[in-house]
């Protein structure tokens, strides 16, 4: 497997076989992530975490992943206190960090930042989110969650719900689901539909994609419900937002018509899209999904930094 030394910028850079390898290694990392097994394969490795846009969750999951495997980290957690605040270019920041560390994890507010960083760095760069662009480790985590629940990614019916226009996680996830032959059902308000270029891309991949206006009809027979945040700032007026947000709120009544095995996923943090009453039920998978972010990143770090899968 040729992930050693590779940049991980977009899920599209990974083949189906490479994604499967990451998921396989991630699965083996679960007991280490839980602390019930010790593995120090990243002993002596130094990872730079450059979070030039604040993101506590993703930063801590990478930090945890590295440290669970015996690696160490140096961190820019707040751009306001770093040289970036003095106007340093990303290119210079990346060149400096690639001289210090063995690999670089980058979060940045501008789309394309990770691709640029990969050009400037002679060490591997892992994209931890670039603006509204790519966030491949989130997609890998989403896939790991589905894989763990069903043992496969192929042939499943996956409902993508909510903001399909701006939600970056959805575009990458749709690509990956298409790669594995899952069926994709889109449910969104008309103003937040999947952009044409994403739909065209999925068509070119030969994906099975269709739209469904009624959530309850989409949920019938669905294996996965992937809920996204609907952000207030995307709407011109408050009442329109309230209407849309209200119509996509998931609670036990909405889920009553779904299959027993249906899993509900959400990239978190949620803003009321899923009622707290769902948390204790059989469908809630979003906290497991959040946990799996750690073993997935452990698996990826292991493959990129050491080439070791087992």
């Amino acid at each position: 497997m040729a992930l050693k030394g590779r940049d991980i910028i977009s899920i599209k850079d990974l083949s189906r076989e490479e994604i499967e390898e990451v998921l396989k290694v991630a699965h083996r990392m679960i007991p280490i992530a839980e602390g019930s097994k010790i593995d120090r394969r990243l002993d002596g490795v130094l990872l730079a975490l450059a979070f030039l846009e604040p993101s506590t969750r993703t930063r801590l999951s990478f930090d945890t992943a590295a440290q669970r495997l015996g690696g160490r980290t140096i961190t820019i957690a707040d751009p306001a206190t770093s040289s970036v605040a003095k106007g340093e270019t990303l290119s210079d920041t990346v060149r400096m960090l690639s001289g210090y560390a063995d690999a670089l994890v980058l979060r940045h507010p501008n789309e394309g930042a990770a691709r640029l960083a990969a050009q400037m760095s002679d060490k591997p760069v892992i994209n931890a989110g670039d603006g509204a662009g790519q966030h491949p480790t989130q997609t890998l985590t989403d896939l790991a969650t589905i894989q763990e629940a069903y043992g496969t990614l192929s042939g499943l019916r996956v409902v993508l719900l909510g903001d399909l226009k701006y939600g970056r996680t959805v575009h990458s996830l749709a690509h990956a689901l298409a790669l594995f032959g899952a069926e994709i059902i889109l449910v969104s308000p008309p103003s937040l539909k999947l952009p044409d270029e994403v739909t065209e891309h999925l068509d070119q991949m030969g994906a099975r994609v269709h739209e469904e206006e009624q959530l309850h009809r989409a949920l019938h027979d669905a294996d996965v419900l992937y809920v996204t945040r609907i952000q207030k700032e995307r709407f011109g007026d408050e009442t329109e937002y309230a209407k849309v947000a209200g119509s996509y709120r998931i609670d036990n009544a909405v889920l009553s018509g779904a299959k027993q095995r249906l899993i509900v996923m959400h990239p978190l943090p949620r803003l009321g899209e899923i009622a707290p009453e769902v948390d204790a039920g059989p469908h809630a998978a979003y906290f497991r999904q959040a946990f799996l972010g750690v073993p997935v990143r452990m698996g990826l770090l292991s493959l990129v930094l050491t080439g070791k899968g087992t």
Partner: protein
Amino acid sequence: MAAPRELKITPIKNGTVIDHIGNGLSLEVLRIIGVGDLDKDSTVSVALHVRSQKMGWKDIVKVENMELSPRKVNAIALIAPTATISIIRDYKVREKRPVDLPEHIVGVARCPNPNCITNRGEPVESEFEVARRRPVVLRCVYCERQMDDFLAHLI
């Protein structure tokens, strides 16, 4: 007997003829060529709205004493994909070819996404790959945004 040819633009000794430019696009082609960069003795001729068997109507630009850089040819290919470029040396056509869009286009157009890293003062040139050829759609290799409105984004 063939009808006498009417020469609307006089021949040039050395330089470049850009023919088969889409009707009305010659002024954009001039902007790409950068007329200000020419030496002061060079003549630039522009013919607008010329009858064409192939195209109905077309524009033609002739520039003396200048051969176009690959970058300028790429820019012309973007806005005038039907254009042909002839290199004239000593009044003779030495080379004639249609413009051809390469797979990667560097430094010719700005990414339309204002939040793209290439628009944020980094020491990097814009770079696009061809997402579709007919009609041409480009994709930014950095932010993956697609673009088909080239006129507004030429550098």
